[in-house]
């Protein structure tokens, strides 16, 4: 089973996978050539695993954030059961960011295989009214998906989002 983390540069995809993976994450982090504040950025993929009972595993893939790697998004999305879009809440237009990824992953999204994690929030207990703009956007797109504020560095936080996605998938089987 395979989940894909995507979202804009600096939204915490690599960190989220590292936080929960049972294996050392295979990262393709390189110094960005464009004008980013980050020291490194993912250029091909991140890969981690969650080892489940009876030899099963969940494969966690992180995509590059930049749209110039859009072809990697498609490659990594093949066969995925769930998608997590991370949105950097502090970016100027986070809803537009979300829209960009929803649009680009549209062919892979079903009514139940998406969860949205809102990162870079000052308060992990983000007020509902701050999350409402994401819900309103998803509603406008006829997408029903959990939206949760998360801290990618915190395992409990990341797993809550993964659980929300898992429940969402299961409920719609």
């Amino acid at each position, binding site marked *: 089973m395979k989940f894909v983390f995507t979202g804009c540069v600096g939204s915490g995809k690599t960190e989220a996978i590292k936080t929960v993976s049972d294996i050392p994450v295979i990262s393709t982090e390189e110094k960005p050539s464009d004008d980013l504040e980050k020291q490194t950025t993912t250029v091909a993929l991140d890969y981690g695993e969650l080892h489940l009972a009876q030899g099963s595993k969940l494969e966690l893939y992180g995509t590059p954030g930049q749209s*110039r790697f859009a072809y990697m998004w498609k490659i990594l999305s093949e066969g995925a059961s769930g998608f997590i879009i991370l949105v950097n809440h502090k970016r100027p237009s986070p809803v537009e960011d979300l829209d960009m990824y929803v649009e680009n992953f549209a062919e892979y999204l079903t009514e139940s295989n998406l969860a949205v994690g809102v990162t870079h929030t000052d308060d992990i207990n983000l007020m509902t009214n701050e999350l409402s703009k994401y819900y309103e956007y998803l509603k406008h797109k006829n997408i029903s998906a959990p939206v949760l504020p998360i801290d990618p560095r915190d395992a409990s936080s990341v797993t809550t989002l993964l659980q929300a996605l898992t429940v969402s*998938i299961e409920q719609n089987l």
Partner: protein
Amino acid sequence: MFTTFEEADIVVISLDENSTQDALDAKNNSDKITVVYGKEKTDHPWHMSPGGGADEFMSVFSDIYASLNNQKPSQAVASFNSFDKLMSFFNQLKNKKNTLISFGNDIQLIYDSKEYKVEFITPKNLSMEAYATLLSSADFSVAKFSEPVSVNHNETVQFDSFSFFWKLFQFISIGAASDEHNKTVYKQMHWPPLTMVPHKEHDLAISALLMKGSFDIYTISGKARCQLEDVYRYILSCLSINFLELCTSPASEALNKNQPDDKKVSLLGKLFQKLQQIKKGS
């Protein structure tokens, strides 16, 4: 002479204007040291390069190789004090997997809207003959010349010689991400899909190609900065075939439509249980 060459996981030859010209000088004039492979220009001890951009490539390859194999690539250091010995070294490479020949930034493929040309852009008096001699002496498959060529600095060769360079560049494209001219060149050449990425990312792709281990020789431009989608696909195939089975979850594990619902629920149940465990432990 080749201290640890036989044990090397990978061999990189990096030819730039200096090393190539020096090699020719040695052939013609003396037995002075022509090409030195070693630690001089890099912190990566197994890296052999007097130039050609291989140090950039190597820094990426080293990290990836180490992360996937839990060890650094083995070391290969060689130095040569004559042209003949360099040729001998090249001939040994014919039978060795994972050989990369990295050319410097001194040759470019130019399309002037009418025809393709090869142009040398270095300030040195480097000739195509230099490359030709080095490669053809070792009878590399990528270096078959239909006719002798001799082109000096800033001269151009016509399409007749393009086949040679096409072979050189058929695997990896060259160009600069910031260079609109090169973007145009490759678009006109119909190289799909012409995604331009910075050279560090290009180097990553090359690293993956090397790890694949199923080729003899690849040629790149050491300063190359654009990259084909196919090369990135190689990254995934390399990783999946040789290391992690990335991108191809076993069908039985996927939540695909053909799977019975109870199996899907079972798999999701295992996942939920695992997530609970992580939560409790965090």
